[in-house]
């Protein structure tokens, strides 16, 4: 096909725009399928991207190479499963000590006990503070450090001292600018001396990681009893050897709990990757839904365009005849109608992207998911426009281009 002259191109565009302007309502209705398709696709892509971003940033505050030995696994699929786990023997200090001694592939092993209590300082008080009973090894496992002061030492733990490290939010709400170090707070009614303040850690899955206080696990057990099941955090010394560490920990635990070969584990080793697996499985489903709905609505939209283009060609048969009679070549007519279908689909895609942008902003405003529309979605939009416009426009346009001028001129 020979190249178009500039006059031919601009005339084609001018005719297309004039024709669409003359049928505003029809044009708008035709774009409906396209823009709904675009909205579905861009909103789902943006939500998935936002979720990915959200989940990975949430997880980054969990130590990436840390595993959690616990009575319950993180993912429980039914009530029956829950009851089964409920019936397991507790994980105790004995297991913790064995792991400290024998888990040679671990960099740090920390006990983890937790509960919610009110923390008071003088007349100020803060409810629902998450109290963690642990050791200094927690810092390695959770990949965090105190901002001021210090964390309690192993001797604080061994001597069962009433010392605590408070989270950033606790400092902020109770102390209002006063230096909390060496002050006494009451945790669940018991006095503790503040020795440090943790750095700000932000939220995880909507829950503040700063409305917290840390106390020696021995003190925790004294206050709340030693007959509750422990969680044990273990950080791998070498991230490459995480799997080997899992095997080692499994071996130590099975032996400690007297499991003969063939019996299933009666404890769980939880890892971030397990949640990621479930999450990825979920988003995979979302992707399939996306591709399904997206392609159906784009197909419907495209067929709508083809239909309206057929109408347009037949309405303008006489015009085509006139243009051909005075010298319009096939490709000029082809271009004129292709332009029209590309403009329709472009309009649909543009409206779709604008509405999607609005929806993305709305989701961002009302949820913690940072939904945003990335520039590649815009490129995708241009791609869609050209593809749909060309694919569904080519048949009507070539029908117009092939019209016999005499037949077209006779058309009433």
């Amino acid at each position, binding site marked *: 096909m020979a190249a178009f*002259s500039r*006059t*031919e191109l601009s*005339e084609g565009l001018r005719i297309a725009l*004039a024709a669409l302007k*003359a049928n505003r309502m029809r044009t708008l209705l035709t774009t409906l399928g396209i823009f709904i398709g675009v909205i579905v696709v861009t909103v789902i892509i943006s939500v998935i991207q936002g979720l990915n971003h959200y989940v990975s940033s949430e997880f980054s505050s969990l130590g990436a190479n840390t595993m959690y030995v616990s009575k319950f696994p993180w993912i429980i699929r039914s009530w029956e499963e829950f009851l089964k786990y409920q019936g397991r023997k507790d994980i105790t200090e004995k297991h913790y000590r064995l792991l400290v001694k024998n888990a040679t592939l671990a960099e740090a092993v920390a006990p983890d006990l937790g509960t919610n209590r009110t923390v008071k300082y003088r007349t100020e008080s803060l409810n629902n503070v998450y109290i963690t009973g642990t050791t200094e090894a927690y810092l390695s496992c959770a990949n965090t450090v105190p901002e001021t002061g210090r964390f309690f030492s192993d001797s604080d733990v061994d001597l069962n001292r009433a010392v605590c490290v408070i989270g950033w939010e606790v400092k902020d709400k109770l102390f209002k600018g006063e230096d909390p170090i060496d002050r006494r707070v009451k945790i669940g009614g018991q006095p503790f001396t503040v020795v440090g303040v943790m750095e700000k850690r932000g939220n995880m899955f909507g829950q503040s990681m700063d409305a917290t206080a840390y106390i020696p696990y021995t003190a925790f057990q004294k206050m709340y009893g030693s007959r509750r099941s422990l969680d044990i955090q273990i950080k791998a010394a070498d991230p490459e050897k995480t799997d080997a560490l899992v095997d080692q920990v499994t071996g130590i635990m099975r032996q400690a709990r007297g499991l003969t070969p063939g019996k299933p584990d009666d404890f769980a080793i939880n890892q971030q990757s397990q949640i990621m697996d479930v999450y990825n499985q979920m988003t995979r489903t979302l992707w399939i839904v996306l591709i399904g709905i997206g392609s159906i609505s784009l197909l419907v939209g495209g067929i709508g365009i083809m239909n309206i283009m057929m109408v347009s060609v037949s309405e303008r048969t*006489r*015009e085509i*005849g*006139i*243009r*051909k*009679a*005075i*010298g*319009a*070549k*096939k*490709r*000029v007519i082809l271009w004129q109608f292709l332009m029209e279908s590309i403009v329709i689909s472009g309009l649909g895609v543009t409206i779709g992207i604008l509405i999607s942008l609005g929806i993305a902003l709305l989701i961002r405003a009302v949820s913690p998911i940072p939904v945003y529309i990335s520039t590649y979605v815009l490129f995708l939009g241009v791609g869609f426009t050209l593809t749909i416009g060309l694919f569904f426009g080519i048949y009507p346009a070539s029908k117009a281009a092939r019209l016999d*001028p*005499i037949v077209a*001129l006779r058309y009433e």
Partner: protein
Amino acid sequence: MLIDLQNVVKDYAIGSEVIHALRGINMKIEKNEYMAIMGPSGSGKSTLMNILGCLDTPSSGAYRLNAKNVGSMDDDRLAEIRNREIGFVFQNFNLLPRASALHNVELPLIYNGTPPAERRANAEKALIRVGLQDRMTHRPNELSGGQRQRVAVARALVNNPSIILADEPTGNLDTRTGDEIMELFETLHDQGNTIILVTHEEYIAEHSDRIVRLRDGKVERDEAT
């Protein structure tokens, strides 16, 4: 020689039936001739005009326009010939209804890539030649029948074609307006244009130098007036 038809035949197949619209036309037309084609309805006048105007090609026989064989040309080449060599005037005007008179006249220039400024100037000149200098921005539905036909004549003129073909150009006009259009053709002829027109009216054919009478797809008579 401008036009040379040799034994031109045109058949139309409708279903299993074949209609012989032209049954062997021989005709030579010189530059600056003014020729009228007459004949009863269905005698093949329009078919002949379509072939002369390169809207259609003969089923057999040869058509040479400016010594070029039109029968062997593809669609795009024919479109080019229509654009540069032929100016059409139709009975029902065939203007684009949504475009101004000026744009209608510019159209042939758009299809041969004339730059916008030149295009506009030429179109205005053509409209002035047909006496429509103060109707350029009007749309066809804002013009009388005679004015519409003048726009069509201006459009036919604008590319300085070798031939102006008019198929019953006064058929939709009243006598007085028809006479005005015929005067216009006469002027164009005087200015050196070649004109071929189809008409039913003897008094209109009188304007020409030569009358060709068709009957049943054949030339019945071909004589100077």
